[in-house]
């Protein structure tokens, strides 16, 4: 038997309605409320405990509520977490999604596809349901089937075939027509007034920070994604999809000397960059600004990676890690050169 834990809000756990919405995380023995119906559907999976939390409590104390729920979950020694179904309830759906997304074990939840919780579920599986509780009878067997597939460690098929909402992973398949034929169809359809697409962007926008109050007092750091490394690439920085970033001491010289640094970036012609590495990391100009007193100083190390085919999630992590080091080192400004 696979041990599973079920998560419910105060209402479905039978603790009360809105008056009980401030209930902090609580453990109940075995399946409760809809958990009983779910348990009846499950084969090879036992719901050993139910965790419940008031919707308002979760919304107002998210961090504390999550931490407590995760502690309770760990104490159960469960291999699977099932949350909801939350139907169209936004607060409940969000709590289900956050817990499922954060749990260190396999997790799935269920809610209406327009529930704002869907966007918070991350890699956790979300079973689509009706918008209200009338869809309970339909939702439970579908949650059970997916739970069994996950518990068995089976590789999941396409979301439509397995009954979960797409999570945003892109997977290849062979279409019936070539890309050219599909392009002609899409264009003719657009010209006829119906615009469709096979891929949408979903880019985030980073707001510019406040200006540095006084550059002449600020320590400046040089950071680059141009793949600039000491000659010979001693730490084998990859030319594409670097898994991390590197830190190297900056020479106490007027600039980066040709022949002592190179770019290993695989996405542009590095000939000119290698002729004069200052074109990638302008230490020469920075030293001039330092000498003239226009900047307070230059941080004694530079940070580098190859920004080429790097997933946004990885770049975000690099940025956070580098920024944390620079902040701790008292750096106030960064010159980030991109390619």
């Amino acid at each position, binding site marked *: 038997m696979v041990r599973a834990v079920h998560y419910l809000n105060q209402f479905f756990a039978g603790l009360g309605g809105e008056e009980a919405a401030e209930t902090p995380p609580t453990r109940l023995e075995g399946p409760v409320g809809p958990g009983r119906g779910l348990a009846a559907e499950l084969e090879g999976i036992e719901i050993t405990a139910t965790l419940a939390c008031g919707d308002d409590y979760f919304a107002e104390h998210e961090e504390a509520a999550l931490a407590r729920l995760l502690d309770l979950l760990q104490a159960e020694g469960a291999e699977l977490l099932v949350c909801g179904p939350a139907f169209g309830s936004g607060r409940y759906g969000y709590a289900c999604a956050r817990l499922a997304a954060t749990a260190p074990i396999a997790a799935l939840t269920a809610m209406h596809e327009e529930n704002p919780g869907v966007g918070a579920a*991350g*890699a956790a599986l979300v079973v689509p349901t009706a918008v209200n509780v009338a869809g309970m009878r339909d939702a439970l067997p579908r949650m059970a089937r997916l739970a069994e597939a996950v518990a068995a460690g089976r590789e999941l098929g*396409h*979301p439509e075939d397995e009954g979960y909402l*797409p*999570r*945003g*992973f*892109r*997977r*290849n*398949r*062979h*279409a*019936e*027509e*070539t*890309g*050219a*034929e*599909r*392009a*002609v169809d*899409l*264009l*003719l*359809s*657009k*010209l006829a007034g119906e*615009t*469709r*697409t*096979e*891929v*949408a*962007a*979903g*880019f985030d926008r980073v707001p510019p920070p406040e200006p540095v109050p006084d550059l002449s007092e600020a320590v400046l750091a040089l950071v680059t994604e141009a793949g600039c490394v000491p000659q010979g690439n001693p730490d084998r920085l990859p*030319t594409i*999809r670097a898994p991390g970033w590197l830190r190297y001491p900056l020479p106490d010289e007027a600039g980066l000397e040709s022949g002592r640094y190179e770019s*290993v*970036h*695989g*996405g*542009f*012609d*590095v*000939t000119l960059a290698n002729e004069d590495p200052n074109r990638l990391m302008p230490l020469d100009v920075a030293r001039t600004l330092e000498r003239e007193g226009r900047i307070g100083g230059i941080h004694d190390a530079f940070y580098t990676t190859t920004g*080429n*085919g790097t*997933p*946004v*999630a*990885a770049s975000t992590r690099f940025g956070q890690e580098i920024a944390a080091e620079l902040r701790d080192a008292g750096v106030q400004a960064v010159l980030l050169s991109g390619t």
Partner: protein
Amino acid sequence: MTAWELATFSSDLLGDVPELEGVDVEIVRPGEPVRITHVLDAVEPRARPDGRPAFPTEARAGEGRTNRLDGVTVLSCLDFPAEERPLHEQESLVDMGGPGADLTPFSRTTNVVLRFRARPQASNEELEAWARRTTLDVAESVARPTLRTDPVEVERFELGPADESLPSVAALVQLSDLGPLYYQYVYGVRAAEAGLPRAIEPAELLDGAVTCGEYHWAALRNPTIFFQQNRLVRTLHDEHGKRLRFAGVVLMRGYEQTAGEKQQAAEQAAELAAGLAADGAIVTTDAGGNSHTDVMLTCRACERTGVRTTVIVAEMADPESTSPGLTDWVPEADSVVSVGNAEETVSAWRPERVVGGDLLLDGTPAAEAGPVPVRNYLGATNQMGQLALTATTW
């Protein structure tokens, strides 16, 4: 408008490959457990009965008749000397078996594999020019036996009149010019010097006017054969007079290097499309990264001149993350064909034989490469829409 005939001949007519100094020649057939490495280009064997060159540098393509050998591909392979690799040319494979075979059409053709051995003193640019010209010459010479017999099929390419009420559609074909080893050629002239943007007849594209010298990501590459067999031009040709009017082909530059030049290239291409009285345009992409910005700028410029667009791009999304897979995007790009995610990995396959060089660029034995990213398979996510691969959201 002139007519052009494409005559198809059986692969049985594959002619002998002449002895070439510094080149190992091997024929690899479908189903053989072979991995072909360091592939630069793929070319369909072609010859002209009137004696004009199959890949003209002076006379015009797309006139008269051209013979093609069906089901045969000439593949050029060259491992450039590593210490002189300014653009870090990318790994490029063709698998004749295993899961990677589904990703390239060359697993289903009889391949004349030319392995060019790097001469110690030659520069990369010299080696590249030698390999490129020799490959086109070989593709022409192995098609010569077709000149002595009758074809199995003759197709005629001529755009007749079409109903004025049908929407007019142009193909905007982006060609790279980024630096040595990263050039596409128009009538033998690199893209930056070929007077782009430039409108050409659809048949010119199919008839060897554009050849490949661009060796960026293998999956995102436009090898010569994909111009010769161009699905986009053929589809638009087939639909001419039925669902649309084919307005023409515009060759445009990719990889301009400054923001201003990129914007200008996009605007000029859009003006040319508007000048062809196109209601809509399909914008294709060559290579990746920087050129994805060019395609998005072109899309925006077209929409601003009133030419509605659909763009074709490959995605480069980490299969384990939900990060967007597009390198660049503009809100005007609301109609996008995805030809697949180049970053997905293909499970490991152990070929019995490797042709083209035993070691991959990173030094791994090619036979034991382990899982291979889709991006390393020649043409797998071709951004002219040559193949059927796509990506969907899971």
